[in-house]
């Protein structure tokens, strides 16, 4: 089975995000970038499927400017077999990303597509769902466990109330949650080998997709700094504060 994994280049999760002074967005100048952590989990899951003999080929894809090849190389070092870069300098929004991935699915015909449930830059949590809709495949989002049996995928999903398990007919779309696995770090020899693995580039136009953004960001603001906490004297005061100040009970 061929597995397609989509990965995104985002701010490194260790970086303290700063909003630009003119509120037009987040300041990306000279900050460290990395693969989105949920995408790393997606790559890891695909690699594990290959190690179990279930996946036969892992194709990793990304959308973005030329530098995003760095994240593809990382994925190749982690165990993906080949990479596809859809190169564009446009800001690509969720729906356009989903359309591009749909075009790749048509081209590659994977048995399974794995994505992160969201990317930690804009936290939209949409692309996987949109891709499932566009391709007509079943979807198992927020996966904390994935079991493949024949042409069926059992996906245990993390939902507000606990866990729910869905059974999907393959091909299907799975998006990863944090607890699905702990991604490995690429070993030095694998980083070296990754340099020789194939990396194909194409443009949105090659895939017949228009990526111009449809949504406009008006303003980006940093969240209000958190207030210092207080210590309550007793339970009565706690209840009072919850009722009258926090208004949660």
């Amino acid at each position, binding site marked *: 089975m061929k597995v397609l994994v989509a990965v995104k280049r985002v701010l490194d999760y260790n970086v303290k995000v700063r909003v630009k002074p003119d509120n037009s967005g987040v300041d990306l100048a000279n900050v460290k970038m990395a693969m989105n952590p949920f995408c790393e989990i997606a790559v890891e899951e695909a690699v594990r499927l290959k190690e179990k003999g279930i996946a036969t080929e892992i194709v990793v894809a990304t959308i973005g400017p030329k530098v995003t090849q760095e994240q593809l*190389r990382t994925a190749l070092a982690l165990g993906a077999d080949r990479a596809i870069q859809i190169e564009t300098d446009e800001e690509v929004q969720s729906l356009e990303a989903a359309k591009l991935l749909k075009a790749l699915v048509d081209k590659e015909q994977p048995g399974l597509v794995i994505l992160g449930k969201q990317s930690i830059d804009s936290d939209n949590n949409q692309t996987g769902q949109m891709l499932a809709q566009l391709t007509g495949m079943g979807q198992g989002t927020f996966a904390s466990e994935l079991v493949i049996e024949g042409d069926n995928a059992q996906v245990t999903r993390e939902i507000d109330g606990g866990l729910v398990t869905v059974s999907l007919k393959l091909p299907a779309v799975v998006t990863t949650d944090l607890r699905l696995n702990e991604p490995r770090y690429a070993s030095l020899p694998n980083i070296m080998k990754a340099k020789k693995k194939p990396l194909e580039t194409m443009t949105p136009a090659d895939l017949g997709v228009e990526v111009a953004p449809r949504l406009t960001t008006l303003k980006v603001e940093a969240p209000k700094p958190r207030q210092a906490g207080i210590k309550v004297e007793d339970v009565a005061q706690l209840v009072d504060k919850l009722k009258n100040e926090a208004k949660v009970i």
Partner: protein
Amino acid sequence: MAKPSTSYFNETHDQARASARRFVEREILPFIDDWEEAGEFPRELYQKAGAAGLLGIGYPEALGGSGEGDLFLKIAVSEELMAASSGGLVAGLGSLDIGLPPVIQWGKPALKEAIVPSVLSGEKIAALAISEPGGGSDVANLKTRAVRDGDFYRVSGSKTYITSGQRADYYTVAVRTGDKGHGGVSMLLIPRDTPGFTRGRNLKKTGWWASDTAELFFEDAKVPVSNLIGQENGGFMVIMTNFLRERLMLCVMAYSTAQLALDMALAYAKERQAFGRSLSGFQVTRHKLVDMATQVELAREYSYRCAALMQAGKNPVKEVAMAKNFTAQVAEDVTREAVQIFGGMGYMREARVERLARDARLLAIGGGTTEIMKELISKQMGL
């Protein structure tokens, strides 16, 4: 003409950094405080580092390494390992980097094949033993004797302050096979289980706690002649060649130690309040931090320059000796000021600047003292 590069590092180096960083975050940082107190780290860490390919950097692929000829890859990964904030751990885990190169460059093929792959995979540990109780600086006059007896050398004498001295499996040992002076020195690979070879206790030290350091005793230890590294009586050149790389790596350790201390001091100065403002609100503190940052950058950039010379096949003995002295001093000065900015907290073991300041002291002693570096430099200056 190619555009002059403003960086010595490429994308592969960045990826190696990312992996090494994760290795440190996952396998070292959660435990390092305990290992420091215990005076050693688990042997298993060698295997984990070996599996991640971190031990094999710069060594021939045929012997299990990642390939030779990319010094900046080694530097990138070493900088990341230093984020463990423990010179001892890096020295202990990295003792192969001083023990193995002589074997690889001058050892017989059978010897190389027998020991190198097992060290690069982390199964075995390698160490270098030159210093003796009678003197470490005066290498040309070392006393440990090796007398030829048929197919063997019989080795008698002792070595001291040997990093990984307690647990190593293979020791690259400097011995006297000939007359007085540097023309009578040879290098021998002595395995741990050689009869007549024993090791003393783990020595208690100012810093570098996580590395085991020990004395070695040879009492008529029988070592096969095939374990000779290089020519008989040609050991001095082997030792000096090895020193160049060791010293460069000590430079990396030195500016990395200073950088860590600076980062910690910067964060603390912004956060800690005194007299109603943050410490960085005092001009005196700001200027101190500026001086520290200036020192760190100069130390690092000059070290990179030395590395670039080595990468280009030069033999920058003078430059590396200068860099070692300069970076060691920067490490001491910057860690001292970092402790000062931390105040009482800087004197507490729970503050990592405390450890960095202790670890920094070694850098002017190990791998050749500051005074010996100056002797080397003055000779190169024709004095």
